[in-house]
């Protein structure tokens, strides 16, 4: 199954707000550590190595100016 790049969130605004709220009260260092744990949890949910590779590629390519 290829990486889903079309809209797939059941509640885009709600989930985004939850992501930001989850960082409330964290220092920058704690936020980085939180993000790292979150990525690992979500990576496990995806599971498939090829889909993960595709996601890494998108993140890398869109970040480059």
């Amino acid at each position, binding site marked *: 199954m290829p990486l889903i790049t079309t809209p797939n969130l059941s509640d885009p605004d709600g989930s985004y707000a939850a992501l930001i709220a989850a960082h409330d009260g964290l220092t920058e260092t704690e936020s*980085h*550590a939180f993000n*790292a*744990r979150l*990525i*690992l*949890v979500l990576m*496990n949910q995806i599971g498939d190595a090829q889909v993960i590779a595709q996601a890494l590629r998108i993140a890398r390519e869109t970040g480059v100016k």
Partner: protein
Amino acid sequence: MKDNVEQRYDLAFRLYPYAKSPDQEAAPRRHPVVVVGGGPIGLAMALDLGQRGVPVLVLDDHEGVGAGSRAICFAKRTLEICDRLGAVGPMMDKGVVWNTGKVFHDDRLLYAFDLLPEDGHAFPAFINLQQPWFEKYLHDAILAAQAAGAPIEIRGRNRVDAVEAWDDHVALRVATPDGSYEVQADWLIACDGARSPLRSMLGLTFDGRVFEDNFLIADVRMQADFPTERWFWFEPHFKSGDSALLHKQPDGVWRIDFQLGWNIDRKAELEPSRIRARVDAMLGPDVPYELVWTSIYTFQCRRMERFRHGRVIFAGDSAHQVSPFGARGANSGIQDVDNLGWKLAAVLDGTAPDRLLDSYNAERVQGADENILNSTRATDFITPKSPVSRLFRNAVLALAETQPFARTIVNSGRLSVPCIYDGSALNGPDAIGLPARTRPGSPCPDAPVPGGWLLRRLSGFVLLGIDAETPDRFEAHGMTIPGLCLSARDNAALRSRYLGEASGAIYLIRPDQHVAARWTAFDADAVAGALARCLARE
């Protein structure tokens, strides 16, 4: 001219004292095989070839086994190979069997793991045994083989000082306490270790990656009630290192390993008082112990571009070097021996052309790359190389305590398992529906069979039939191969490992107990074709 052949290290066992050979007084004599180096790989190589009737001469610049525990973890595949070589009995008697590992972060146990949850194997996943004992038992097996007529000769305090490689032989100049002499070899096997003088003399490169870290080994003898398990700490609370390892050896000795970092004063760190301070912090102040052996090592992951250079073949650390995480050093060298022995014997007796030896290069380079990949990944996890790498490493450790998925990412060493030679030129046909783990190129997994264990029944080429019509012997290309017919009825291990959902299977097994080809029914032409392919005759 006298040459004293400097002794670079102390011996644990003096096994083959220098004795003058008639070769030293004669014109250069030609030997079919010369092995340089009397470490575990050189000794196993000599034993393997000698038991096949191949005359083999071992040249070692020392007179026995070096002191110091060094390699301590010997994996199941190594034990299976040593069983074939007739050396495993005392290893199992002396060695410490362990199956459980525990991983800690700071002062918390993250999880425990079992190395071999699968039944139906003659040997455990690992034993711990100090390297000198491993080598001594190989030498004991050589003595027994010699007594039974195996043409093995070991010359101690014989140091190779020069080598000339020709198209049809290799010439060596050898220093001894009685001066130098020349000896020639049809085939030379370099088992002379990570710093291989032969590799340097031949001007061959050994490229790879250096890891900027130092590890301190402190082997201590103590009466302690730690269980026989492998304990690994990331960022241990006792602060004796960035990581630490505790592992049991025979004779009440424990291997303790501390990660010290890159910028250290090596000499100061080796001071016994300094080492004791680290060990005390780990064990607590009231545990009495004795320091048995200490060493600081750095490591590299690298290999030669090719392991075969004409008539010179490299095996073990001379060909490839890995970090110790995963116990992939000596264990992979023993697999080199397993792969090379039957091929060289087949070339020497004319059964196979010498290009069969190119498959040694291809298969063991594949094995080395797998080991380097695994050991590099473990090292990068244990010693993160950037702030973000450390961030993710610690995120994995934080999750591992409560989230089972994260435990699969924790990497304190992926412990040595044999390489599957997928894609090897020697592999013949596969059959759809048979289990993936026994596909062509795979090492045969053991299984209980009537009267003992499957692997003990696999010697030389074997045609293994499971619930399929199998000839008692199969003849092709001037060779006779025994057939072995077994039933998987009432044998769940054999069924799941070799049959799967199929009703019957035929396996052509190589002398190193790797699968050459397999079918669901016997077909003489197909087996003959696979045999020719496996001997590089087509």
